[in-house]
């Protein structure tokens, strides 16, 4: 079996992403965890590029790296305690959590092995060149995704109002 350039790129990206993800859940310093989270987001963006979803890769960078991670870092700074920032960052059941996560991964892996269709998918299907237009048209087409589109705006409104009510109350 020969290794292609695609596969090498994928493996490097996957390795970096998983390393960063492992740092997110193990780092003692929360800001380090947040920066590793940003690295993970970036790795996922590269994976989207490899999957030829350039728009989603850009959205991933704009939204996750540019907005959500800033929100997370602000929240870390707002809730920082010197005492709680040092010392172990895991609770007593961490080993149980690790066992559970490993068991879940093993189960998922077994399932993946047993579905032949997943092994055979080759990725040779043609990607439509105007996928962006299809997406934009799908958003406003009543026969496609109009409802999720409008619901997303309602969801965002509720999130905005709720967060302001919760975080903005006067002490």
């Amino acid at each position: 079996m020969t290794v292609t350039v695609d596969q090498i790129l994928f493996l490097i990206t996957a390795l970096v992403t998983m390393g960063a993800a492992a740092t997110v859940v193990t780092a003692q310093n929360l800001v380090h965890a947040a920066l590793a989270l940003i690295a993970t987001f970036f790795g996922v963006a590269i994976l989207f590029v490899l999957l030829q979803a350039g728009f989603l890769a850009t959205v991933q960078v704009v939204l996750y790296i540019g907005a959500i991670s800033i929100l997370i870092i602000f929240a870390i700074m707002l809730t920082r305690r010197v005492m709680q920032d040092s010392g172990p960052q895991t609770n007593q059941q961490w080993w149980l959590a690790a066992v559970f996560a490993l068991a879940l991964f093993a189960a998922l892996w077994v399932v993946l092995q047993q579905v032949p269709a997943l092994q055979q998918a080759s990725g040779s299907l043609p990607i439509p060149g105007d996928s962006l237009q299809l997406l934009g048209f799908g958003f406003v087409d009543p026969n496609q995704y109009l409802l999720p589109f409008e619901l997303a705006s309602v969801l965002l409104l509720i999130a905005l109002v709720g967060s302001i009510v919760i975080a903005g109350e006067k002490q």
Partner: protein
Amino acid sequence: MVPLSWYLTLAAALFCVGLYGVLARKNAVAILMGIELMLNAVNINLVAFWHYLEPQVMAGQMFTIIVLTVAASEAAVGLALIISIYRRRNTVIAEDVDLMKW
């Protein structure tokens, strides 16, 4: 070419790492970061299925954007809750918030 199962395996691994973070971390913000990892794993799956199985139907990308929206809302409200709890009880350790615990 990269087989589909590679992407799915990676997504499964990322999901499990995120799950570990959610279950094992003490700090509530770190728990939220774990949830973000899990949502990202889901997104990888969705985009991989779109690319390998149905590239002419935009449902995969569409769903990914909805997941992104939900992730943004979840982060906004979740972090607002954490900040609120911090201001009232001066802690962000999930275990210390046990007023409703029996």
